[in-house]
């Protein structure tokens, strides 16, 4: 049984070193990481590629996954080679699944992940780094956590600055309302970062439209049915005062449109976010005035690509500048004028991306306020 004992000793040492490294803080971290098992491995020839995300019921995540699968196929593998970790909205499951996968693959893992809730990002990144895997994150990350504190293993973080695009869609909405009247906002899960930013975008735009009143803003949890019920309540509370609706994403907009349809209201100005195919269709029909396409297909593919290529040693993340480690994803505004063209370009025929052009479509380094 001596090998088990030896193994435990080894792990103990590794873990202690790693913890020592985390405690050493910013400067010491990269150096401390040198003792970790990950650093002992120069490159992983054939890492398992995995995507961890919230669920399969939201079109947004399906788009993300399609990008991940496209990347895997681009490597000449079957798309089944991509491992899916679905957390069902549970940070706990998200973390447990990642750890299981790390164990199974012996750390030979290239992981792309949305960690479901911002605080969950740190333990996941720490776990991947400790096991010598490579991870790229999107969306949820606390502000105190940075890829460059983890040497090479935390490859990148991509998010989307929603405040500006949301402000732009808000302007389209407010203009369509004729610069007066009342607007309601239906938000995402209240504590989610994008939900906060998108509402803030609306508020920014409203400063230039003194005659428009923000009647109410309520969370609809990214959920069509919830949005439907909240909108029904708004209709009673404000009735004709509502002359425009600002939705935090497309799935919320669907619920809003149906709540309005039930009342026979067909011409309410609505804007949304995400750029799902169905929403783009609705924009072409002018049922929604604008949405913001964040190109989840590319985001899904490139996050997997970054992790994969860092793992195989194709590039060394720690040699890259910070704007290549934390960056904003692309945003494309979709309006009725360009909806058909957009659809043809991005949705009907998904463009073939060069998955080694890591930062081409990105949008600059993440700024913290």
């Amino acid at each position, binding site marked *: 049984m001596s090998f088990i004992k030896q193994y435990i000793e080894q792990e103990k040492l590794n873990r202690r070193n790693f913890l020592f490294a985390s405690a050493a803080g910013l400067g010491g971290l990269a150096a401390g990481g040198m003792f970790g098992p990950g650093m002992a491995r120069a490159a992983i020839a054939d890492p398992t590629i995995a995507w961890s995300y919230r669920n*399969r*019921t939201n079109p947004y995540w399906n788009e993300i996954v399609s990008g991940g699968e496209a990347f895997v196929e681009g490597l000449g593998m079957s798309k089944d080679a991509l491992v899916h970790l679905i957390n069902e909205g549970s940070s706990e499951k998200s973390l447990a699944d990642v750890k299981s996968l790390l164990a199974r693959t012996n750390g030979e893992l290239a992981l792309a992940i949305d960690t479901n809730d911002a605080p969950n990002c740190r333990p996941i990144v720490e776990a991947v780094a400790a096991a010598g895997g490579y991870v790229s994150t999107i969306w949820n990350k606390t502000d105190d956590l940075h890829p460059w504190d983890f040497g090479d293993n935390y490859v990148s973080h991509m998010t989307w600055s929603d405040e500006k695009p949301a402000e732009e869609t808000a302007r389209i909405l407010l203009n369509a309302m004729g610069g007066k009247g009342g607007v309601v906002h239906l938000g995402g899960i209240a504590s989610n970062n994008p939900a906060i930013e998108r509402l803030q975008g609306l508020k920014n735009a409203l400063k230039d439209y003194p005659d428009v009143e923000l009647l109410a803003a309520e969370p609809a949890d990214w959920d069509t*049915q919830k949005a439907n019920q909240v909108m029904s309540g708004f209709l*009673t*509370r404000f009735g004709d005062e509502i002359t425009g609706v600002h939705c935090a994403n497309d799935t919320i907009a*669907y619920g809003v449109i149906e709540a309005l349809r039930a009342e026979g209201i067909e011409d309410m100005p609505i804007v949304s976010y995400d750029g799902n195919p*169905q929403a783009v269709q609705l924009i072409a029909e002018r049922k929604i005035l604008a949405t913001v396409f964040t190109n989840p297909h590319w985001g899904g593919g490139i996050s997997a690509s970054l992790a994969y290529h860092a793992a195989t040693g194709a590039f060394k993340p720690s040699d890259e500048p910070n704007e290549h480690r934390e960056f904003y994803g692309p945003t494309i505004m979709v309006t009725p004028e360009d909806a058909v063209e957009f659809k043809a370009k991005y949705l009907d025929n998904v463009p073939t991306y060069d998955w080694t052009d890591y930062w081409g479509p990105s949008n600059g380094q993440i700024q913290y306020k």
Partner: protein
Amino acid sequence: MNGILSRETLVKWAPLMVLLILVLFFTVLEPRFLSVRNLARISVSAAPALMVALGVTFIIIMGSIDLSMEGTVSVSAVIFAFAFLYLGGTLFGLAWLALPLAVLVGAVIGLINGIVHVKLRIPSFMASLAMGFVGTGLALLLTGGDRIRVEDEAFRGLLTERWLGFPIMVYVAIAFVLVGWFIQSRTTLGRNFYAVGGGEELAHASGLNVSKVRILGFMLAGMFYAVGALLAVARIGIAETATGNNFMFMSITSVVVGGTALWGGIGGVWNTLVGVLIVNVIGNGMVVIGLPGYVQDAVLGLLVIVAVVLSTDRKSISFVK
């Protein structure tokens, strides 16, 4: 305390009184609450939940519990949408067959649920919880995570067509309440639910085939869930894995708020109607009076407790679990 104000009478009518007080309360704060338009909105949002709650009412009367509704609703909705589109996508064609098919799907899932519970002798809480996972998982497997749009104008007419200010789906829901009431009061099966809930061992000794009643109960509940799924799809125009979300806790809460006891034997369809309306009136009312989002969960919780306290006959029970 006698005459019309006896304790029994008070307890019997307490849920309805709670509902009226709530309506009055919200109307005073916001008169528009009591408009026909808003009542129609409440009815529309309550209709699918009501169907699900009716289904689980029968189970609760038997003293069991069913937590499989979220899965059953999702599967029924998804299969309905697939079949509807496959059969032509409009009610005027063959696609109407998708409606009975969905109900059949609900019945089959309910039947399996009942068989797992009765034949494997697993308490219904656990059996149905697990079946719920299976249902949601099956819906996910069928759709692969996609949403299926049902755009047919005739089917969506359930939402868009109105009689006397109320969409047709509200009348459909009322019709099914009457069906539920009929089952409860005029059929052997309905009365047997009460017998099982009142004393399972005694019912068995009287020659009642309790296993059969239980299994049929779960099957019937599955059919009501499927009707709820149809109304949910009619309301949103989308069938997806998430169609069933949030039905579980809300439907059981509604049933309890309406005065049906979780230990079985007491309550019924009308209680559930009132209970569902109470929960939906609170939900709608909180938005209508402009209560901030972050306190809504607390207010809903507290009001539910008050409603249950008022409609429970505390003298007649020694303890609750």
